[in-house]
Protein backbone atom coordinates (compact mmCIF):
# COMPACT_ATOMS: atom_id res chain seq x y z
CA UNK A 1 0.00 0.00 0.00
CA UNK A 2 1.27 3.44 -0.86
CA UNK A 3 2.59 5.42 2.07
CA UNK A 4 1.73 8.66 0.28
CA UNK A 5 -0.43 10.87 2.44
CA UNK A 6 -3.84 11.69 1.02
CA UNK A 7 -4.51 14.42 3.56
CA UNK A 8 -3.77 18.09 2.88
CA UNK A 9 -0.35 19.24 4.11
CA UNK A 10 -0.19 19.52 7.88
CA UNK A 11 0.80 23.18 7.77
CA UNK A 12 -2.58 23.96 6.23
CA UNK A 13 -4.37 22.29 9.10
CA UNK A 14 -5.88 24.67 11.63
CA UNK A 15 -5.32 22.13 14.41
CA UNK A 16 -1.70 21.32 13.52
CA UNK A 17 -0.10 24.33 15.20
CA UNK A 18 -2.43 24.06 18.17
CA UNK A 19 -1.52 20.42 18.75
CA UNK A 20 2.22 21.04 18.42
CA UNK A 21 2.04 23.95 20.87
CA UNK A 22 -0.04 22.10 23.45
CA UNK A 23 2.18 19.02 23.26
CA UNK A 24 5.28 21.19 23.71
CA UNK A 25 3.79 22.62 26.91
CA UNK A 26 2.69 19.20 28.18
CA UNK A 27 6.10 17.64 27.52
CA UNK A 28 7.74 20.59 29.27
CA UNK A 29 5.50 19.97 32.32
CA UNK A 30 6.17 16.23 32.11
CA UNK A 31 9.90 16.97 32.00
CA UNK A 32 9.67 19.01 35.20
CA UNK A 33 7.58 16.31 36.89
CA UNK A 34 9.94 13.56 35.75
CA UNK A 35 12.96 15.54 36.93
CA UNK A 36 11.35 16.15 40.30
CA UNK A 37 10.55 12.45 40.64
CA UNK A 38 14.05 11.43 39.59
CA UNK A 39 15.79 14.00 41.78
CA UNK A 40 13.76 13.19 44.88
CA UNK A 41 14.28 9.44 44.41
CA UNK A 42 18.02 10.02 44.00
CA UNK A 43 18.06 12.27 47.06
CA UNK A 44 16.25 9.73 49.22
CA UNK A 45 18.60 6.99 47.97
CA UNK A 46 21.50 9.25 48.83
CA UNK A 47 20.19 9.85 52.34
CA UNK A 48 19.53 6.18 52.84
CA UNK A 49 22.97 5.12 51.68
CA UNK A 50 24.71 7.81 53.76
CA UNK A 51 22.93 7.25 57.08
CA UNK A 52 21.72 3.69 56.80
CA UNK A 53 23.68 1.51 59.21
CA UNK A 54 25.15 4.38 61.17
CA UNK A 55 24.41 5.47 64.71
CA UNK A 56 25.46 8.42 66.75
CA UNK A 57 25.91 8.15 70.49
CA UNK A 58 25.84 11.31 72.55
CA UNK A 59 27.27 11.32 76.06
CA UNK A 60 26.58 14.48 78.03
CA UNK A 61 28.50 15.48 81.10
CA UNK A 62 31.91 16.73 82.09
CA UNK A 63 34.46 16.23 79.40
CA UNK A 64 36.73 13.81 81.27
CA UNK A 65 33.89 11.61 82.58
CA UNK A 66 32.18 11.52 79.22
CA UNK A 67 35.41 10.64 77.43
CA UNK A 68 36.09 7.81 79.87
CA UNK A 69 32.58 6.45 79.40
CA UNK A 70 32.96 6.81 75.64
CA UNK A 71 36.26 4.95 75.57
CA UNK A 72 34.77 2.10 77.63
CA UNK A 73 31.78 1.93 75.33
CA UNK A 74 34.01 1.90 72.21
CA UNK A 75 36.18 -0.84 73.68
CA UNK A 76 33.10 -3.00 74.26
CA UNK A 77 31.49 -2.09 70.96
CA UNK A 78 34.53 -3.20 68.97
CA UNK A 79 34.05 -6.67 70.39
CA UNK A 80 30.64 -6.93 68.73
CA UNK A 81 30.69 -8.61 65.29
CA UNK A 82 27.84 -6.31 64.13
CA UNK A 83 30.02 -3.23 64.61
CA UNK A 84 32.24 -2.35 61.71
CA UNK A 85 33.61 0.86 63.12
CA UNK A 86 33.23 2.83 66.36
CA UNK A 87 35.16 5.98 67.09
CA UNK A 88 34.90 9.24 68.99
CA UNK A 89 34.12 12.25 66.84
CA UNK A 90 36.91 14.73 67.52
CA UNK A 91 36.06 18.03 69.17
CA UNK A 92 37.52 19.85 66.16
CA UNK A 93 35.14 18.05 63.83
CA UNK A 94 32.14 18.86 66.04
CA UNK A 95 33.18 22.50 66.11
CA UNK A 96 33.58 22.48 62.34
CA UNK A 97 30.06 21.11 62.00
CA UNK A 98 28.73 23.90 64.21
CA UNK A 99 30.63 26.67 62.52
CA UNK A 100 28.23 27.21 59.55
CA UNK A 101 25.37 27.63 62.01
CA UNK A 102 26.98 29.76 64.73
CA UNK A 103 29.87 31.38 62.85
CA UNK A 104 31.62 32.45 66.07
CA UNK A 105 34.81 30.58 66.90
CA UNK A 106 35.01 31.91 70.41
CA UNK A 107 31.43 31.00 71.22
CA UNK A 108 31.92 27.52 69.76
CA UNK A 109 35.13 27.03 71.73
CA UNK A 110 33.28 27.93 74.96
CA UNK A 111 30.32 25.66 74.31
CA UNK A 112 30.01 22.60 76.54
CA UNK A 113 30.00 19.96 73.85
CA UNK A 114 28.94 16.36 74.40
CA UNK A 115 31.19 13.47 73.44
CA UNK A 116 29.97 11.87 70.24
CA UNK A 117 30.63 8.32 69.12
CA UNK A 118 30.18 7.54 65.45
CA UNK A 119 29.25 3.89 64.91
CA UNK A 120 28.98 2.03 61.63
CA UNK A 121 27.26 -1.34 61.59
CA UNK A 122 28.13 -4.24 59.30
CA UNK A 123 24.42 -4.88 58.73
CA UNK A 124 21.81 -2.46 60.01
CA UNK A 125 19.32 -4.79 61.71
CA UNK A 126 17.08 -4.12 64.69
CA UNK A 127 18.92 -6.85 66.62
CA UNK A 128 22.30 -5.23 65.95
CA UNK A 129 20.98 -1.85 67.10
CA UNK A 130 19.61 -3.47 70.29
CA UNK A 131 23.00 -5.06 71.03
CA UNK A 132 24.79 -1.76 70.45
CA UNK A 133 22.29 0.06 72.67
CA UNK A 134 22.82 -2.48 75.48
CA UNK A 135 26.63 -2.18 75.28
CA UNK A 136 26.55 1.62 75.21
CA UNK A 137 24.05 1.83 78.10
CA UNK A 138 26.21 -0.52 80.20
CA UNK A 139 29.10 1.90 79.82
CA UNK A 140 27.10 5.14 79.98
CA UNK A 141 23.52 4.79 81.14
CA UNK A 142 22.78 8.48 80.35
CA UNK A 143 23.91 8.12 76.70
CA UNK A 144 21.53 9.17 73.96
CA UNK A 145 21.56 6.87 70.94
CA UNK A 146 20.32 8.22 67.63
CA UNK A 147 19.95 5.66 64.84
CA UNK A 148 18.81 8.41 62.39
CA UNK A 149 15.88 6.33 61.27
CA UNK A 150 13.04 8.28 62.76
CA UNK A 151 13.90 11.62 61.23
CA UNK A 152 15.13 10.01 58.07
CA UNK A 153 11.89 8.07 57.62
CA UNK A 154 9.83 11.19 58.15
CA UNK A 155 11.83 13.27 55.73
CA UNK A 156 11.96 10.42 53.23
CA UNK A 157 8.18 10.00 53.49
CA UNK A 158 7.76 13.71 52.86
CA UNK A 159 10.14 13.59 49.91
CA UNK A 160 8.46 10.53 48.44
CA UNK A 161 5.11 12.27 48.87
CA UNK A 162 6.44 15.13 46.76
CA UNK A 163 7.74 12.58 44.29
CA UNK A 164 4.28 10.99 43.97
CA UNK A 165 2.74 14.41 43.45
CA UNK A 166 5.24 15.05 40.66
CA UNK A 167 4.45 11.64 39.17
CA UNK A 168 0.71 12.32 39.29
CA UNK A 169 1.39 15.66 37.60
CA UNK A 170 3.09 13.78 34.80
CA UNK A 171 0.20 11.33 34.55
CA UNK A 172 -2.20 14.26 34.40
CA UNK A 173 -0.09 15.86 31.67
CA UNK A 174 -0.37 12.66 29.66
CA UNK A 175 -4.10 12.50 30.40
CA UNK A 176 -4.38 16.04 29.06
CA UNK A 177 -2.39 14.91 26.02
CA UNK A 178 -4.90 12.11 25.33
CA UNK A 179 -7.84 14.51 25.61
CA UNK A 180 -6.07 17.05 23.41
CA UNK A 181 -5.37 14.45 20.74
CA UNK A 182 -9.00 13.27 20.82
CA UNK A 183 -10.15 16.87 20.44
CA UNK A 184 -7.63 17.67 17.71
CA UNK A 185 -8.41 14.46 15.82
CA UNK A 186 -12.15 15.12 15.96
CA UNK A 187 -11.54 18.66 14.76
CA UNK A 188 -9.40 17.29 11.92
CA UNK A 189 -12.12 14.81 11.03
CA UNK A 190 -14.56 17.68 10.73
CA UNK A 191 -12.07 19.77 8.77
CA UNK A 192 -11.30 16.94 6.36
CA UNK A 193 -14.69 15.26 6.18
CA UNK A 194 -14.76 15.83 2.40
CA UNK A 195 -11.40 14.07 2.04
CA UNK A 196 -12.56 11.17 4.19
CA UNK A 197 -15.75 10.82 2.16
CA UNK A 198 -13.79 10.67 -1.08
CA UNK A 199 -11.27 8.18 0.33
CA UNK A 200 -14.16 6.12 1.64
CA UNK A 201 -15.98 6.17 -1.69
CA UNK A 202 -12.94 5.21 -3.75
CA UNK A 203 -12.50 2.12 -1.60
CA UNK A 204 -9.97 3.06 1.09
CA UNK A 205 -10.20 0.79 4.09
CA UNK A 206 -10.92 2.25 7.53
CA UNK A 207 -7.50 1.20 8.79
CA UNK A 208 -5.86 3.01 5.88
CA UNK A 209 -7.80 6.24 6.44
CA UNK A 210 -7.20 6.05 10.19
CA UNK A 211 -3.48 5.45 9.69
CA UNK A 212 -3.26 8.64 7.62
CA UNK A 213 -4.54 10.63 10.58
CA UNK A 214 -2.51 8.64 13.08
CA UNK A 215 0.80 9.18 11.27
CA UNK A 216 0.08 12.85 10.94
CA UNK A 217 -0.76 13.08 14.65
CA UNK A 218 2.38 11.09 15.48
CA UNK A 219 4.55 13.51 13.52
CA UNK A 220 2.93 16.59 15.06
CA UNK A 221 3.12 15.23 18.60
CA UNK A 222 6.75 14.08 18.29
CA UNK A 223 7.63 17.45 16.80
CA UNK A 224 5.79 19.26 19.61
CA UNK A 225 7.47 16.96 22.13
CA UNK A 226 10.92 17.77 20.77
CA UNK A 227 10.17 21.48 21.05
CA UNK A 228 8.96 20.97 24.63
CA UNK A 229 12.12 19.05 25.45
CA UNK A 230 14.25 21.70 23.82
CA UNK A 231 12.54 24.37 25.93
CA UNK A 232 13.03 22.21 29.02
CA UNK A 233 16.82 21.88 28.54
CA UNK A 234 17.65 25.42 29.75
CA UNK A 235 15.11 25.03 32.56
CA UNK A 236 16.90 21.86 33.67
CA UNK A 237 20.26 23.60 33.50
CA UNK A 238 18.79 26.41 35.62
CA UNK A 239 17.46 23.96 38.23
CA UNK A 240 20.87 22.24 38.36
CA UNK A 241 22.63 25.59 38.82
CA UNK A 242 20.28 26.60 41.65
CA UNK A 243 20.70 23.20 43.31
CA UNK A 244 24.50 23.51 43.22
CA UNK A 245 24.25 26.82 45.07
CA UNK A 246 22.55 25.17 48.06
CA UNK A 247 25.44 24.49 50.41
CA UNK A 248 23.89 22.56 53.24
CA UNK A 249 24.50 18.99 54.27
CA UNK A 250 20.89 17.90 53.95
CA UNK A 251 20.92 18.37 50.19
CA UNK A 252 23.91 16.41 48.97
CA UNK A 253 24.84 16.57 45.28
CA UNK A 254 22.28 14.52 43.37
CA UNK A 255 23.18 12.60 40.25
CA UNK A 256 20.12 11.76 38.19
CA UNK A 257 20.16 8.08 37.21
CA UNK A 258 20.51 6.84 33.63
CA UNK A 259 16.87 5.61 33.46
CA UNK A 260 15.80 9.21 34.13
CA UNK A 261 17.75 10.51 31.14
CA UNK A 262 16.38 7.71 28.97
CA UNK A 263 12.85 8.50 30.18
CA UNK A 264 13.34 12.20 29.50
CA UNK A 265 14.58 11.57 25.96
CA UNK A 266 11.73 9.14 25.33
CA UNK A 267 9.02 11.61 26.42
CA UNK A 268 8.27 12.82 22.86
CA UNK A 269 8.29 9.25 21.54
CA UNK A 270 5.99 8.00 24.31
CA UNK A 271 3.69 10.99 23.73
CA UNK A 272 3.77 10.21 20.00
CA UNK A 273 2.90 6.55 20.54
CA UNK A 274 0.01 7.39 22.87
CA UNK A 275 -1.26 9.94 20.36
CA UNK A 276 -0.94 7.48 17.48
CA UNK A 277 -3.14 4.95 19.27
CA UNK A 278 -5.62 7.60 20.43
CA UNK A 279 -5.93 9.10 16.93
CA UNK A 280 -6.31 5.65 15.36
CA UNK A 281 -9.08 4.73 17.81
CA UNK A 282 -10.86 8.07 17.42
CA UNK A 283 -10.87 7.93 13.62
CA UNK A 284 -11.93 4.30 13.45
CA UNK A 285 -14.77 5.00 15.84
CA UNK A 286 -15.89 7.95 13.71
CA UNK A 287 -15.63 5.91 10.50
CA UNK A 288 -17.69 3.10 11.95
CA UNK A 289 -20.61 5.56 11.94
CA UNK A 290 -20.38 5.87 8.15
CA UNK A 291 -22.12 3.42 5.77
Amino acid at each position, binding site marked *: *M*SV*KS*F*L*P*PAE*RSTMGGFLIGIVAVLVFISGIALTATGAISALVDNWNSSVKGTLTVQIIGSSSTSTTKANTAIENLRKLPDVKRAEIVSRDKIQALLKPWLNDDKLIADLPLPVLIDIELTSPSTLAISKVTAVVKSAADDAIIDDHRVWLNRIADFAMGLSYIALSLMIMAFGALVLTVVFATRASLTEYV*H*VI*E*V*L*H*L*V*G*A*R*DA*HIASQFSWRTWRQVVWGGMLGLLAFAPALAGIAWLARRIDIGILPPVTLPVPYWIGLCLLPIVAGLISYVVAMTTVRRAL*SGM*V
Partner: protein
Amino acid sequence: MALFRSKTKESESDPVQLEGVSLRYGNSPDIFSDLSLTLPARSLHFLTGPSGAGKTSLLSLLYLANLPSNGQVRLFGHDVAKTSRAKRTTIRRQLGAVFQDFRLLDHMSVFDNVALPLRVTGTPETAVQENVSELLRWVGLEGLFDALPPVLSGGQKQRVAIARAVVTRPKLIIADEPTGNVDDAIAERLMQLFVELHKLGACVIVATHNERLVERFAFPRLHMERGVMSVLPAKSPSPSTGAQAG
Protein backbone atom coordinates in the same frame (compact mmCIF):
# COMPACT_ATOMS: atom_id res chain seq x y z
CA MET B 1 -34.45 -8.21 -24.46
CA ALA B 2 -35.44 -9.99 -21.27
CA LEU B 3 -37.33 -7.33 -19.41
CA PHE B 4 -38.79 -9.59 -16.76
CA ARG B 5 -36.20 -12.24 -16.20
CA SER B 6 -36.89 -14.79 -13.54
CA LYS B 7 -34.52 -14.92 -10.59
CA THR B 8 -31.93 -17.36 -11.80
CA LYS B 9 -28.45 -18.06 -10.54
CA GLU B 10 -27.15 -15.82 -13.29
CA SER B 11 -29.29 -12.90 -12.19
CA GLU B 12 -27.93 -13.19 -8.64
CA SER B 13 -24.63 -11.75 -9.81
CA ASP B 14 -26.21 -8.77 -11.55
CA PRO B 15 -24.37 -5.65 -10.44
CA VAL B 16 -27.53 -3.91 -9.29
CA GLN B 17 -30.65 -5.44 -7.78
CA LEU B 18 -33.16 -3.32 -5.89
CA GLU B 19 -36.20 -4.93 -4.30
CA GLY B 20 -38.95 -2.85 -2.73
CA VAL B 21 -36.49 -0.12 -1.86
CA SER B 22 -37.52 3.03 -0.02
CA LEU B 23 -35.34 5.92 1.05
CA ARG B 24 -36.02 8.77 3.39
CA TYR B 25 -33.76 11.08 5.33
CA GLY B 26 -34.56 11.20 9.03
CA ASN B 27 -38.25 11.79 9.62
CA SER B 28 -38.90 13.35 6.22
CA PRO B 29 -41.25 11.66 3.75
CA ASP B 30 -39.95 8.93 1.45
CA ILE B 31 -37.89 10.22 -1.47
CA PHE B 32 -39.09 7.11 -3.25
CA SER B 33 -40.66 3.90 -2.10
CA ASP B 34 -41.10 0.30 -3.15
CA LEU B 35 -38.62 0.65 -5.98
CA SER B 36 -37.52 -2.53 -7.69
CA LEU B 37 -34.88 -2.62 -10.38
CA THR B 38 -32.34 -5.00 -11.83
CA LEU B 39 -29.43 -3.85 -13.96
CA PRO B 40 -27.25 -6.53 -15.48
CA ALA B 41 -23.61 -6.35 -16.39
CA ARG B 42 -22.72 -4.93 -19.83
CA SER B 43 -25.60 -2.47 -19.77
CA LEU B 44 -25.89 1.30 -20.03
CA HIS B 45 -28.87 3.26 -18.82
CA PHE B 46 -29.68 6.89 -18.65
CA LEU B 47 -31.40 8.02 -15.49
CA THR B 48 -33.66 10.91 -16.24
CA GLY B 49 -36.34 12.90 -14.54
CA PRO B 50 -37.01 16.38 -13.25
CA SER B 51 -34.95 17.93 -10.49
CA GLY B 52 -35.99 16.61 -7.08
CA ALA B 53 -37.32 13.36 -8.53
CA GLY B 54 -34.85 11.35 -6.46
CA LYS B 55 -32.17 10.54 -9.04
CA THR B 56 -29.23 11.59 -6.88
CA SER B 57 -30.74 9.81 -3.88
CA LEU B 58 -31.10 6.64 -5.88
CA LEU B 59 -27.50 6.90 -7.04
CA SER B 60 -26.36 7.47 -3.44
CA LEU B 61 -27.75 4.03 -2.62
CA LEU B 62 -25.76 2.55 -5.46
CA TYR B 63 -22.44 4.10 -4.52
CA LEU B 64 -23.07 3.17 -0.89
CA ALA B 65 -23.33 6.61 0.61
CA ASN B 66 -26.70 5.63 2.08
CA LEU B 67 -28.54 2.48 3.05
CA PRO B 68 -32.19 1.94 2.13
CA SER B 69 -34.85 2.74 4.72
CA ASN B 70 -36.76 -0.32 3.54
CA GLY B 71 -36.24 -3.06 1.00
CA GLN B 72 -33.08 -4.63 -0.26
CA VAL B 73 -30.22 -3.23 -2.31
CA ARG B 74 -28.00 -5.95 -3.69
CA LEU B 75 -24.77 -5.02 -5.41
CA PHE B 76 -22.89 -7.83 -7.11
CA GLY B 77 -25.14 -10.24 -5.22
CA HIS B 78 -24.49 -8.77 -1.75
CA ASP B 79 -27.24 -7.25 0.36
CA VAL B 80 -25.46 -4.02 1.29
CA ALA B 81 -27.41 -3.55 4.51
CA LYS B 82 -26.28 -6.92 5.82
CA THR B 83 -22.69 -7.00 4.63
CA SER B 84 -19.79 -6.04 6.83
CA ARG B 85 -17.99 -2.73 6.45
CA ALA B 86 -14.98 -4.55 5.07
CA LYS B 87 -17.14 -6.19 2.41
CA ARG B 88 -18.72 -2.86 1.52
CA THR B 89 -15.23 -1.51 0.91
CA THR B 90 -14.58 -4.43 -1.43
CA ILE B 91 -17.84 -3.59 -3.24
CA ARG B 92 -16.86 0.08 -3.49
CA ARG B 93 -13.65 -0.96 -5.19
CA GLN B 94 -15.76 -2.47 -7.98
CA LEU B 95 -17.65 0.70 -8.67
CA GLY B 96 -16.80 4.15 -9.91
CA ALA B 97 -18.84 7.23 -9.17
CA VAL B 98 -18.95 10.66 -10.77
CA PHE B 99 -20.56 13.25 -8.56
CA GLN B 100 -22.44 16.37 -9.54
CA ASP B 101 -20.09 18.42 -7.38
CA PHE B 102 -17.03 16.45 -8.63
CA ARG B 103 -15.63 15.90 -5.11
CA LEU B 104 -12.04 16.37 -6.19
CA LEU B 105 -9.40 16.86 -3.54
CA ASP B 106 -8.14 20.40 -3.97
CA HIS B 107 -4.75 19.75 -2.38
CA MET B 108 -3.92 17.03 -4.88
CA SER B 109 -2.87 17.44 -8.49
CA VAL B 110 -5.06 16.26 -11.33
CA PHE B 111 -2.82 13.22 -11.69
CA ASP B 112 -2.99 12.33 -7.99
CA ASN B 113 -6.76 12.76 -7.91
CA VAL B 114 -7.18 10.30 -10.73
CA ALA B 115 -4.59 7.95 -9.24
CA LEU B 116 -6.32 7.91 -5.84
CA PRO B 117 -8.55 4.83 -6.37
CA LEU B 118 -5.53 2.88 -7.64
CA ARG B 119 -3.26 3.97 -4.83
CA VAL B 120 -5.70 3.15 -2.04
CA THR B 121 -5.89 -0.39 -3.40
CA GLY B 122 -2.12 -0.71 -3.46
CA THR B 123 -1.66 -0.76 -7.23
CA PRO B 124 2.05 -0.71 -8.16
CA GLU B 125 3.22 2.83 -8.97
CA THR B 126 4.38 1.88 -12.47
CA ALA B 127 0.87 0.71 -13.35
CA VAL B 128 -0.57 3.84 -11.75
CA GLN B 129 1.66 6.08 -13.88
CA GLU B 130 0.81 4.20 -17.06
CA ASN B 131 -2.97 3.95 -16.56
CA VAL B 132 -3.52 7.45 -15.25
CA SER B 133 -1.41 9.11 -17.93
CA GLU B 134 -3.20 7.24 -20.69
CA LEU B 135 -6.64 8.04 -19.30
CA LEU B 136 -5.87 11.72 -18.76
CA ARG B 137 -4.67 11.99 -22.34
CA TRP B 138 -7.87 10.28 -23.47
CA VAL B 139 -10.07 12.82 -21.68
CA GLY B 140 -8.02 15.69 -23.09
CA LEU B 141 -6.14 16.74 -19.97
CA GLU B 142 -2.62 15.87 -21.08
CA GLY B 143 -1.17 19.28 -20.23
CA LEU B 144 -2.72 19.47 -16.79
CA PHE B 145 -1.22 16.54 -14.89
CA ASP B 146 0.25 18.75 -12.17
CA ALA B 147 -2.54 21.32 -12.03
CA LEU B 148 -4.58 21.64 -8.87
CA PRO B 149 -8.38 21.43 -9.17
CA PRO B 150 -9.05 25.02 -8.05
CA VAL B 151 -7.40 26.33 -11.21
CA LEU B 152 -9.45 24.09 -13.53
CA SER B 153 -12.63 25.04 -15.35
CA GLY B 154 -15.87 23.22 -14.53
CA GLY B 155 -15.53 21.07 -17.62
CA GLN B 156 -11.96 20.13 -16.80
CA LYS B 157 -12.93 19.21 -13.26
CA GLN B 158 -15.69 17.06 -14.63
CA ARG B 159 -13.26 15.20 -16.85
CA VAL B 160 -10.93 14.64 -13.91
CA ALA B 161 -13.85 13.29 -11.90
CA ILE B 162 -14.81 10.95 -14.72
CA ALA B 163 -11.24 9.77 -15.17
CA ARG B 164 -11.05 9.04 -11.43
CA ALA B 165 -14.30 7.08 -11.60
CA VAL B 166 -13.23 4.83 -14.45
CA VAL B 167 -9.49 4.45 -13.84
CA THR B 168 -9.95 1.14 -12.03
CA ARG B 169 -12.16 -0.22 -14.86
CA PRO B 170 -15.03 -0.70 -12.41
CA LYS B 171 -17.86 -3.15 -13.01
CA LEU B 172 -20.45 -0.59 -12.04
CA ILE B 173 -20.20 3.07 -13.06
CA ILE B 174 -22.56 5.61 -11.54
CA ALA B 175 -22.40 9.06 -13.07
CA ASP B 176 -24.48 11.97 -11.82
CA GLU B 177 -24.70 14.63 -14.51
CA PRO B 178 -21.26 13.79 -15.91
CA THR B 179 -21.65 16.09 -18.91
CA GLY B 180 -23.33 18.99 -17.17
CA ASN B 181 -20.39 21.38 -17.48
CA VAL B 182 -18.90 20.51 -20.85
CA ASP B 183 -19.69 21.43 -24.39
CA ASP B 184 -21.42 19.01 -26.73
CA ALA B 185 -18.22 17.77 -28.35
CA ILE B 186 -16.63 16.86 -25.04
CA ALA B 187 -19.92 15.48 -23.72
CA GLU B 188 -20.03 13.15 -26.67
CA ARG B 189 -16.42 12.12 -26.14
CA LEU B 190 -17.06 11.40 -22.46
CA MET B 191 -20.17 9.40 -23.31
CA GLN B 192 -18.07 7.41 -25.74
CA LEU B 193 -15.85 6.50 -22.81
CA PHE B 194 -18.84 5.18 -20.88
CA VAL B 195 -20.01 3.29 -23.95
CA GLU B 196 -16.59 1.68 -24.34
CA LEU B 197 -16.58 0.64 -20.69
CA HIS B 198 -20.08 -0.77 -21.02
CA LYS B 199 -18.92 -2.78 -24.04
CA LEU B 200 -16.09 -4.11 -21.91
CA GLY B 201 -18.67 -5.47 -19.46
CA ALA B 202 -19.45 -2.66 -17.07
CA CYS B 203 -22.90 -1.72 -15.93
CA VAL B 204 -23.22 2.03 -16.47
CA ILE B 205 -25.87 4.42 -15.14
CA VAL B 206 -25.75 8.01 -16.31
CA ALA B 207 -28.07 10.51 -14.66
CA THR B 208 -28.61 13.43 -17.01
CA HIS B 209 -30.88 16.26 -18.01
CA ASN B 210 -29.27 16.41 -21.42
CA GLU B 211 -32.03 15.24 -23.79
CA ARG B 212 -29.78 15.58 -26.82
CA LEU B 213 -27.32 13.16 -25.28
CA VAL B 214 -30.10 10.69 -24.50
CA GLU B 215 -31.28 10.90 -28.10
CA ARG B 216 -27.80 10.77 -29.58
CA PHE B 217 -26.84 7.64 -27.65
CA ALA B 218 -29.56 5.10 -28.07
CA PHE B 219 -29.71 3.47 -24.70
CA PRO B 220 -32.76 2.84 -22.54
CA ARG B 221 -33.61 5.28 -19.82
CA LEU B 222 -34.80 4.86 -16.29
CA HIS B 223 -37.19 7.72 -15.80
CA MET B 224 -38.00 8.90 -12.29
CA GLU B 225 -40.85 11.19 -11.52
CA ARG B 226 -42.37 11.83 -8.09
CA GLY B 227 -40.58 8.84 -6.69
CA VAL B 228 -41.88 6.45 -9.33
CA MET B 229 -39.58 4.80 -11.83
CA SER B 230 -40.37 3.60 -15.31
CA VAL B 231 -38.12 2.00 -17.89
CA LEU B 232 -38.33 3.69 -21.26
CA PRO B 233 -36.80 1.99 -24.26
CA ALA B 234 -34.15 3.62 -26.39
CA LYS B 235 -35.48 5.99 -28.99
CA SER B 236 -33.60 4.29 -31.79
CA PRO B 237 -32.30 0.71 -32.08
CA SER B 238 -30.11 0.01 -29.08
CA PRO B 239 -28.20 -2.86 -27.54
CA SER B 240 -30.09 -5.26 -25.35
CA THR B 241 -29.89 -4.15 -21.73
CA GLY B 242 -32.04 -6.51 -19.76
CA ALA B 243 -33.22 -3.81 -17.38
CA GLN B 244 -36.30 -4.45 -15.36
CA ALA B 245 -38.09 -2.06 -13.07
CA GLY B 246 -41.17 -2.19 -10.95
